């Protein structure tokens, strides 16, 4: 029996998540935002981005280019920022995945989010979750990063609305506030 026939035999007419064959028998588990989620009958070729968005209902990571150029789908994979579009979901088995939803829930980037709002760094907002993840990651690694280092660190996140001015301003605001609090 080919995989395609397997897929056909399993799919009911109302099953919109029906995979095009080559799925993992019995599904697999992903550790996302501190909980274990089961992915059923998913095609092996699905990206982590697709699985997060379309199978697990976590649509905060965005789908702007799906080839790792724009950073809209940034998530943390074992604490490292990756483009979820360029990671196969099955390659993330056993890793800890944290998305914008997870960062938001544990208020890990609340000051970054607040600064983006007050500085005016949000317009259409499509790139925003990716920027929140990237800025969160940058400032915990390099809290005192200078402007050029900030620009380089964020150069993998494209924004078409803001010209980055208000986003960079938000980063400065967070740096200032954190160093003020630390004193």
């Amino acid at each position, binding site marked *: 029996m080919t995989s*395609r026939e397997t897929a056909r035999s399993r799919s009911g007419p109302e099953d*919109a998540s029906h995979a*095009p064959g080559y799925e993992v028998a019995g599904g697999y588990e992903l550790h996302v935002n501190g909980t274990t989620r089961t992915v059923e009958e998913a095609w092996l070729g699905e990206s982590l981005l697709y699985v997060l968005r379309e199978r697990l209902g976590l649509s905060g990571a*965005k789908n702007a280019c799906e080839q790792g150029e724009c950073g809209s789908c940034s998530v943390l994979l074992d604490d490292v920022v990756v483009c979820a579009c360029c990671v196969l979901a099955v390659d993330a088995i056993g890793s800890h995945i944290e998305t914008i939803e997870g960062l*938001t829930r544990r208020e890990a980037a609340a000051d970054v989010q607040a600064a983006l709002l007050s500085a005016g760094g949000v*317009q259409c*907002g499509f790139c925003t979750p990716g920027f929140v993840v990237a800025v969160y990651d940058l400032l915990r690694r390099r809290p005192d990063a200078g402007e050029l280092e900030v620009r*380089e660190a964020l150069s993998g996140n494209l924004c078409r609305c803001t010209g980055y001015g208000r986003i960079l301003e938000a980063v400065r605001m967070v740096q200032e506030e954190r160093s003020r609090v630390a004193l």
Partner: protein
Amino acid sequence: MSRSSAPVATRPAARTRPRAGIGADAARPDGVPKVRGEFAFSSDLWMDGMLWGRTLRSPHVSARIVAVDPSPALAIPGVRAVVTAADVPGRPTYGLEEPDQPVFASEVVRYHGEPIAAVAADHPETARAGVRAIEVVYEPLEPVVDAERALRAPPLHPDGNLFRHLVIRHGDLDATGDVVVEGTYEVGMQDQAFMGPESGLAVPADDGGVDLYVATQWLHVDRDQIAASLGLPAERVRLHLAGVGGAFGGREDVSLQIHLCLLALGTGRPVKMVYSRDESFFGHVHRHPAKMWFRHHATRGGDLVKVEARIVLDGGAYLSSSNAVISNAACFAPGPYKVPNALIDAYAVRTNNPPCGAMRGFGSVQVCYGHEAQMDKLAAALGMDPVELRLHNALERFDRLVTGQVLTGTVPVRECIRAAMAHPLPPAPSLLDPPMARPGGAGLSADHADVRRGVGIAVSLKNVGYSEGFDDYATARVRLEAGVGGEPVATVVAATAEVGQGFVTIAQQIVREELGVADVLLAPAGTTDIGSAGSSSASRQTWMSGGAIQLACVAIRRQLIARAAASWGCSHASVEWDAGEAVHEGTGERRGLAALLADGAVEAEHEHHHRPTVPLDADGQGDAHLSVMVAAHRAVVDVDPGLGLVKVVQVTTGQDVGHALNPTQVTGQIEGGIAQGVGLAVMEEIVLDEGRVKNPSFTDYLVPTTLDMPAVAATFVEEPEPDAPYGAKGVGEPPVISSGPAVLAAIRDATGLALTRAPVRPEDIALAGQST
């Protein structure tokens, strides 16, 4: 951020000033969900039993379609439907200005990527497999990809190859100047490259109609085009605005809307479609590439005598909004200068290139590269400073455009130039600069000794709103009622597309300002409950939808005054409105919103039309435009001429905004627009090879990143526009127009090269003068 004029009003008493009203940096109502990743964009939609749609597109630039056989696709398990031209029950074509574009190509394909069929399947990969399985037999044809050639070639379409030929004849056409400069200029094809790809969800309805949740710029005109092709009455096609991930003109035309509705109606199931990035490059119109010739005449003293121009815009395979784009290009070809005599010969032409239409700046961008290069050339010929030449010829209020129209609104050209020039220049390039700050950036390729600094200026002019007699209007309804706990709550109903520009914030600020109510809700935008808002384009929504909301609020206030008058037994005339309360002029008695709303809600709807404009006559003359916006930009660049690498160091601007209703949002528009202007100047271009798109991805089509983006300093020039609500002009487009031409001028200054084409590519600098 500085502002050139002092705040207009004196500081009002605390209670008379609603918090977050006009002029405040009010927060976006959609901001919190956006930073939390909870805002639902059109690609985030999901429904039980939903199918995935995908489009089959032509691999050929020009071909005859001999046969289309969908049966191999239908044989794939999980493929639920294939639709082709044969399945379009209504009008087989659509289009913004004229319906000349097929929903699906059936006999011929006229551009690379033209849709042939669409597939609905259980999984996006299955849909992709279905698309691949459809068998199409093409007979490739020789494409016509040069606009000049297309003017003489056999028709590529039953409507012919000339979209519009517009001639502007103004003043004495035989006039000549002591000093004459001429040049030819070229602008490449720019893409809007909004981040959120085209996407939507179509849901078949019990009445045989369809509900479409989609990211778009103009719901009602989408609706009308979809209904015509579905053969359904308009009221059975219900559009709902889904979260829009940027637009910039690229969502003004229909893309996947009709395909999605056909698939949903054909399968009886909800269908979602999300373009991949490469498909997005094929799925929407682009900025028109331009070829332009200019000849400027001036007196020895530097007075412009005459401007002659020939402008050819390549409209691609279908009309889209080419007729309006070429009109702007022609009308604003001389730029923001007094030009007593002009002969402008402008053509928009059909070719086999990808269709072009609306993009931010809309016709003014292309000609600005020409008129500003000419002003610099003229300054050099006259031995004059380029800034002085511009100031000397700057348009003023009550001057005429070359269309003969007297500019009755504000035209602060000199103020914008002076404001752009007033910002401090950045420090000169230094050996101590980090290498990444040099041309080549993270490539660390430029040596300090090779870096040349250049400075350039450019100034631009563009219309606000729709021109040439178009009945431009927007509709809004406001309802004011007592909410939970008796606190007044206002609800705004409008079909205005929020595309990121921040109209939702402005709408709330207007209602707070007019009614003194803190709580302002925005109903979801759609076609079911309100008339058209017009498009979120042409920098028009603050003026148009903002005006409609303001006037609806005024009508509500009138009703509240009537209620107060009735309760006091006095005439309406003796009741005033002050700080969200009705005041009895005689007794000084006050009645607040809570008391006035005790009798029930108050509601008013307003359809706001701007002052009528007229079509241009046979000589291109007439009062075709509502109002104009001015911007001036100064750019500073560092160039490594040997490597051809450019680093844009700084862009400063003075922008005519009328009145900044939300300064933070205005700043965001200015910085974002400058990013797109800089992009067109040095990196952004859809590369075509005989009509074939070579770079449909963010790997190959380069959008400016944080490292490409210069420092920006902006000054708002605030001279309130007499006709506009709160005196506010549009702010979205001017930043993208002259910022790029200023960068080109700066690169010319640094290199001494002519550089007549945008974008400037490394080889245009490094290989200049070498025969190729």
